[in-house]
């Protein structure tokens, strides 16, 4: 299990290959990657991600350990960036390895649902019109209810 909270970009392909190479017993590997979208139709200049150093790592490890307790997983990876990102930059990724595809998929979705609403990150979008904190969405909170 690897949890990384970092300012630097990560290489999705290199991470996916390293994750897959490290887990030879699993038949199924799922990755999810989040990319900065230009929500405001062409005028998003930068996204700033603030986090809570100290708590962030703990919160991510807790979420990952809950996934490991809940599904039969070979391995789990969580990478989440903070700082300044531009449209097209990769914000975060999770990867799960399991014997069965259902476990790998469900665990990855679980990780994402909890990362969205229970890991201490806050996004601010800066456009030509100014800067605004991204509001949490009711549907993200609702997504937790299925687990």
């Amino acid at each position, binding site marked *: 299990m690897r949890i990384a909270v970092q300012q630097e970009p990560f290489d999705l392909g290199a991470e996916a290959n390293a994750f897959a190479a490290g887990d030879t017993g699993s038949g199924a590997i799922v990755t999810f990657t989040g990319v900065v979208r230009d929500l405001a139709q062409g005028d998003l200049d930068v996204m700033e991600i*603030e986090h809570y150093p100290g708590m962030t790592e703990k919160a991510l490890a807790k979420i990952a350990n809950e996934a490991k307790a809940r599904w039969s997983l070979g391995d789990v990876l969580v990478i989440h960036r903070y700082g300044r990102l531009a449209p097209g930059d990769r914000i975060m990724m999770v990867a799960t390895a399991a014997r069965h595809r259902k476990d790998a998929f469900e665990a990855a979705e679980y990780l994402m649902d909890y990362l969205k609403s229970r890991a201490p990150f806050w996004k601010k979008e800066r456009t030509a019109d100014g800067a605004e904190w991204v509001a949490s969405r009711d549907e993200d909170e609702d997504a937790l209810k299925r687990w």
Partner: protein
Amino acid sequence: MDVLYFAWVRERIGLPKEQVETSAATVSDLVAELRAREPRYEAAFADLSALRVALDQELSDFDASLTGVREVAFFPPMTGG
């Protein structure tokens, strides 16, 4: 006790962290003390339903006791992922 603020809570209050001397028993009591200080605190804590709190880096709630707690953090709902 260390009190930390993140995102727009930090911006409204104007600082990321401060030391607070308090004998507040619960998070709500601490919030009441802070709100009484200055308008910028009043502005930050006006709507508690828009806030979350962590005690010693664990998510908690406003009814929780502060006994033994060294670090309190206030922030809006998280938007990770």
